[in-house]
């Protein structure tokens, strides 16, 4: 597996629960290659979000090892984890999570400001990303003025603008109607092909599943296929 950019070995994730522990993920072994368009598919509560968060360095495994882009997640400092996310990982959430007081432009620009990109490069990258997602006429709008579909497109633009290696999308279509869901998926699929960005979804939505090139089935914290 020369091209593996995510490697998980014997990973377990437990949360404290009362006096004992609750095991959210158990004995996970996975490898994701660069350029995949993969989905972690499973019912609610199966541990999909937990898995994505750990891969994305927002959380740490309790046992085992998770290596994302060569970095062992359990051993990263806060600062290094932040840097990894900022440079190489784009997040898309079920509830969009746009910054409410910023315009569409400012939301998409945000990751580039953290990257300390020069103003002219930043502007070009933001405008390009907005164009890919068909948002050019919404530049000045605030998230509150947008529909759900538009919000999620802004979120995709924000994830893609820095041309990350990996995009982690946690149930991105859960709050969208069929038309918007297909729209978003087509765009992401196109970006995957054109830019070779690795996409890792979490979903239990049939509409998403039909676009995936690989499915990882998760049930009660375990990979079942």
């Amino acid at each position, binding site marked *: 597996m020369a091209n593996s950019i995510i490697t998980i070995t014997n990973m377990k994730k437990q949360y404290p629960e009362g006096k004992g522990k609750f095991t959210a993920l158990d004995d996970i072994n996975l490898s994701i290659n660069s350029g995949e368009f993969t989905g972690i598919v499973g019912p609610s509560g199966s541990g999909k*979000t*937990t898995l994505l*968060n750990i891969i*994305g360095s*927002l*959380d740490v495994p309790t046992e085992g090892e998770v290596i994302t882009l060569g970095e062992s997640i359990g051993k990263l400092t*806060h*600062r290094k984890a*932040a*840097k990894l*996310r*900022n*440079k190489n990982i784009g*997040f898309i*959430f079920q*509830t969009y*999570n*746009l*910054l*409410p*007081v*910023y315009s569409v432009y*400012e939301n998409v620009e*945000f*990751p580039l*400001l*953290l*990257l*300390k990109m020069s103003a002219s490069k930043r502007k070009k990258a933001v405008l390009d990303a907005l164009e890919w997602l068909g948002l050019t006429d919404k530049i000045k709008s*605030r998230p509150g003025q947008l529909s759900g579909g538009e919000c999620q497109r802004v979120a995709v633009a*924000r994830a893609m603008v820095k041309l990350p290696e990996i995009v982690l999308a946690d149930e991105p279509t859960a709050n969208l109607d069929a038309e918007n869901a297909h729209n978003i998926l087509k765009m992401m699929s196109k970006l995957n092909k054109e830019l070779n960005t690795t996409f890792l979804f979490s979903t239990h939505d049939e509409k998403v599943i039909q676009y995936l090139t690989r499915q990882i089935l998760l049930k009660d914290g375990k990979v079942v296929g």
Partner: protein
Amino acid sequence: MLSIKLAFRNLIGAGLRTWLNVIVLSFSFVIIIWNKGVLNGWNEQARHDMVEWQIGGGQYWQENYDPYDMFTINESHSAIPQEFKNDIANNEMTPILINTGTIYPDGRMQNVILNGIMPNQKVLKIPTEKLENNSNEISVLIGKRMAKNNKLEVGDYFPIRWRDANETFDASDAKVVGIFNSNVPVIDQGKIWISLQQLQKMLVTPNEATMLITKNVDRKNAEVDGWIFRDHKFLLSDMDEIIRMKNVGGSIFYLILLALALLAIFDTQVLSIFRRQKEIGTEIALGMTRWQVVRLFTVEGAMYSIFAAVLAAIYGIPLLALQAKNGFPMPEAADSYGLPIAKAIYPTYSLGLIFGTVFVIFIATLIVSYLPAKKISKINPTDAIKGKIQ
């Protein structure tokens, strides 16, 4: 730099919530600076008046003289030192002879201090030239407060009684030849001004004085046997103390105002950190460290004071400038402080005052913003992203 840019965006984006805090804080700025400016103006005016009317450039006191001890005042005079004769002749210095006395205006008795002063002196602003006359009767000059309290007018006569250097009581009628109007109550209330020569004659203390007032504050004041030089620092210390007390009093008032403004910011911050969990989680997911977010929220809070300073400048500068030009009218009753107070005080604003106030408020907002923001460093980002209140 980044946190400044983002904080600015956040505040502008937040709209009304920002402006409410900024407006309240800007009041603190203007009121603190105004309050201090009025005190400064008053201080300067009071000093100026005291120098012109009462203390001159400094005073030589006869070594026994203590203005607060009525019992020794009558023993606190001696011959004017030879070395001062030239300065007195040149109006660089003027002698004052002080003694107690009693007057009976309208038949009522009142203890007073008799001040002998040369009618042609040019050291104090008191219009002593009115005392120049050749008649044998006692001519006196009094201040407007003294005149009002005793219902005296120019031309009125009243009996005056004193004890001369030989412990002998003597009495005579005195005539009011002038009433002067000064902001300095000390030279007015309970004081009678008489020509020096006249008083020396009354007390049988020819050529003696209690103090010598110099005109120029820069004068070289050599040591003279039997006399103690009192400089401005000494002579103005009572006033400095009162101004300091007024300052403390004023401070309490605007500290409360400032505390209210800071509380509003603190409150906004605490609320923000609860309400904006999802935002915080998202920012962390996008690659900010938790400490970067703490810094962002802290800068955001502190930036209220910058906005407030700008707003305060917009309406405060014209307002304060207008008042510095037209003066701040003082109520008549203000006289009872015993300090020289003009009808209107012209506030003075120094750059130090303005920048000092801005700096102090900036630091204060920085602290009240940091304290709640510090909590962010303990936030769990995966919960925050979901908007779970932690």
